[in-house]
């Protein structure tokens, strides 16, 4: 039996022909490629919103979707200035009493007019005891909501508030139709829910009766979830989506160099270290301050954020903040000698061992932790990395199962008050140093919020800056650049500065697809 005698099974030619036919079939649909409707914006989200309950905060992706469905009394224009949204105007009768006039043309998605009764109902829902509303504590200075007529209402406060109008513009403070049943919340945003599938997509269609006549410009938005950041970017490059949030830092250079893509970036969130101050060396503020002097922050920016960020040496006063808080006397620098001196002063001349908590879920947290670990070793602090998944990380933070830990977040408006929830002992959470409580910081935060005179507020926050350096509730590390990337066809999408970065999606109202 020769090999030749058996060659009339599949021959090389038939096999190759099979391959060829397969390839042709695969490539064929490429020619039939159809663009989805030209004016439906396709938006690549980083995660599917865990919930779009109007007043709960479940993250940036949810906030973007919520902002398209719902609106509040105030909002931001494309220049990121606070402007009336459902409110037509407002008038402060005194420091603690404000009267809102509503726009008569504002309508909910079911056609009902937006009335002061709906505003009262929504605010009361937020303030309801036991509600999971994000802004419940921040808005707790509201002690009266009085309906004057259908379009006029008075809100009275127990103390003045410098930031209430900013809070009203937050994604988590929308006005919902008071007749909404159960979980079916009816809002009045620029888009209406068309269809959705959990974990996959959310499709919205234009609300033709939106209060801002002539907007939104596109006929709909299709949010598509790409959990993997590299796939999200690939989808943008392949033209599957028109815009993505959270452009991965590794791709900034590619987008810069591309003639098809552009980005809207701002120096928004910041990275910092938290401490468990209930035990061990970190209970001593001198040790915490020493950590602040031990770290070369530019290395974090370079290693974790591909150079897209800026070192942060003191209290995180956001870009766009009206206050100048710079005070070289009370800020850190990279000064290992001073760090060692502080450690010696605190009784740890030879350093110590500790656990550094971060998460493997987010590369930027993990990379930041690695750089911190290396620099701490240089002053004798041997940190063991603990890198669980995000869920475990959050619980470990809440329960204080760490010595020091990496975190990064943003406020929601460009005012020092915006990080009160990260510092005030009334809101203990995994976002704060475990067991940390400072009466001075609490009191300054309360004063700053209740003060409406800008000069007095400046003085208050300058003092807060000093106390922050002395008591070290956190060690600031760096600002990071946060970016949306988009096709060049997109016009009118604006990048809001500082902590307002997440609110940039307000500008989707004006966005067009060329």
């Amino acid at each position, binding site marked *: 039996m020769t090999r030749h005698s*058996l060659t009339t099974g*599949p021959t090389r030619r038939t096999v190759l022909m*099979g391959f060829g036919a397969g390839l042709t079939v695969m490539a064929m649909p*490429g020619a039939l490629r159809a663009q989805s409707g030209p004016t439906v914006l396709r938006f690549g989200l980083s995660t599917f919103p865990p919930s779009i309950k109007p007043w709960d905060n479940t993250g940036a992706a*949810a906030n973007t979707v919520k902002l398209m469905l719902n609106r509040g009394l105030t909002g931001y224009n494309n220049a990121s200035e606070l402007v009336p949204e459902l409110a037509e105007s407002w008038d402060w009768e005194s420091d603690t009493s404000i009267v809102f006039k509503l726009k008569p043309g504002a309508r909910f998605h079911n056609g009902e007019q937006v009335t002061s009764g709906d505003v009262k109902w929504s605010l009361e829902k937020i303030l309801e005891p036991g509600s999971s509303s994000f802004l419940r504590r921040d808005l707790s200075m509201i002690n009266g909501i009085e309906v004057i007529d259908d379009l006029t209402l008075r809100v009275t406060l127990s103390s003045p508030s410098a930031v209430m109008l900013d809070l009203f513009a937050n994604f988590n403070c929308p006005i919902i139709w008071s007749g909404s049943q159960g979980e079916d919340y009816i809002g009045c945003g620029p888009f209406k829910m068309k269809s959705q599938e959990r974990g996959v997509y959310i499709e919205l269609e234009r609300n033709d009766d939106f209060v801002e006549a002539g907007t939104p410009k596109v006929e709909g938005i299709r949010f598509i979830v790409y959990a993997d950041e590299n796939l999200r970017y690939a989808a943008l490059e392949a033209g599957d989506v028109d815009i993505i949030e959270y452009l991965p830092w590794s791709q900034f250079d590619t987008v810069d160099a591309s003639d098809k893509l552009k980005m809207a970036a701002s120096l928004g969130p910041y990275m910092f270290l938290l401490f468990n101050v209930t035990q061990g060396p970190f209970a001593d503020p001198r040790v915490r301050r020493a950590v602040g002097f031990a770290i070369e922050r530019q290395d974090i920016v370079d290693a974790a954020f591909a150079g897209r960020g800026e070192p942060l040496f003191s209290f995180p006063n956001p870009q766009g903040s009206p206050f100048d808080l710079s005070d070289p006397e009370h800020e850190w620098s990279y000064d290992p000698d001073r760090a060692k001196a502080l450690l010696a002063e605190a009784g740890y001349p030879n350093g110590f061992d500790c656990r550094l908590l971060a998460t493997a879920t987010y590369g930027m947290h993990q990379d930041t932790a690695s750089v911190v670990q290396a620099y701490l070793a240089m002053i004798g602090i041997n940190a063991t990395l603990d890198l669980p*998944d995000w869920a475990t990380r*959050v619980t470990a933070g809440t329960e204080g199962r760490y010595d020091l830990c990496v975190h990064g977040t943003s406020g929601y408006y460009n005012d020092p008050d915006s990080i009160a929830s990260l510092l005030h002992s009334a809101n203990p*959470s995994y976002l704060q140093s475990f067991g940390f409580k400072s009466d001075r910081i609490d009191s300054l935060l309360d004063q700053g919020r209740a003060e409406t005179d800008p000069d007095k507020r400046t003085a208050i926050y300058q003092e807060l800056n000093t106390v922050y350096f002395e008591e070290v509730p956190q060690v600031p590390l760096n600002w990071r650049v946060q970016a949306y990337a988009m096709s060049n066809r997109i016009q009118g999408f604006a990048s809001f500065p500082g902590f307002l970065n997440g609110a940039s999606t307000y500008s989707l109202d004006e966005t067009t697809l060329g």
Partner: protein
Amino acid sequence: MAAFLFRRLVAAAGMLLVVGTIIFSLLVIVPGDPAALLLATGGGSGTEEQIAAVRERMGLDQPVWQQYVDFLTSSLRFDFGTSLIDGSSIAENIGLRLPRTLELIVAGALFALAVAIPAGTYAGLHAGGRFDVVASAANALLTSVPGFVVGTLFIYLFAQILRVLPAGGYVPFAQDPVQHLRMLVLPALTVGLHLSTIIFRMTRASVLEMRGHDWVRTATAKGLRRRLVVRRHILRNALGPVITVVGLQLGILLGSTVLVEFVYNWPGLSGFLVSAVEQRDYPSVRAVILTVAAIFIAINLAIEILYSLLDPRIRQQ
């Protein structure tokens, strides 16, 4: 036969109970509080009071034994309950996503069979020939490259460079058939590529073994057309073990397409399971694992019954 069937069914039910109990216990042990997590997503945080309120809504304030009893009794009624995260029906979610994972697996398997059986047969018939050397080397290479690497390369090549196929995603067939198929191509190829390496190896080895048998020589000697010899006397015998392996692999794929689904954003069952684990959505995790386990056990049961019909001796054991 009835007694045999009864014993097998009891054993299958027992296995499901064990699987269910293990999943339940694991999820109790794993750290991470779904309530705190829900309120913590994206840099926010809940107050203790808010977390307590959410825990109550989720039923997590009940004692563990109570949760276990509830879980068992509701599973018996096929009532998987609702997701902790968004309150959607878990049964509906599974009903939606299981077919997509199956679609991916079936499409991948069809591709793998279509490529690997002819290629494996040809290579087996011409062992040591040029095609065999090249194909076997390529096969060794592809076997050792994990699916997510292949996936990433495919996306880079076909979506980002050539821009002929989408980078990932999904649209229902009913909504846009062409786009649906275009989105299916890359993930199915990725699933199929790995499967095809296994099938190629099995087919080649099996054909190589069969072609040396006496009956093949006899068939050739009595003047049968070569095509018939290959098809009837070699392939038919050679494919037995191949089919067994393919069957096994399909079962395994049901739980292991997760990386492919992740890389291509294909909204199948494994992706649903992973995100449920990440969010500590206990009822969803349990329901998906129970479903997959039940399918496995059902397949095994079916095979056992089939074997017992073919070979009555098994029933006596």
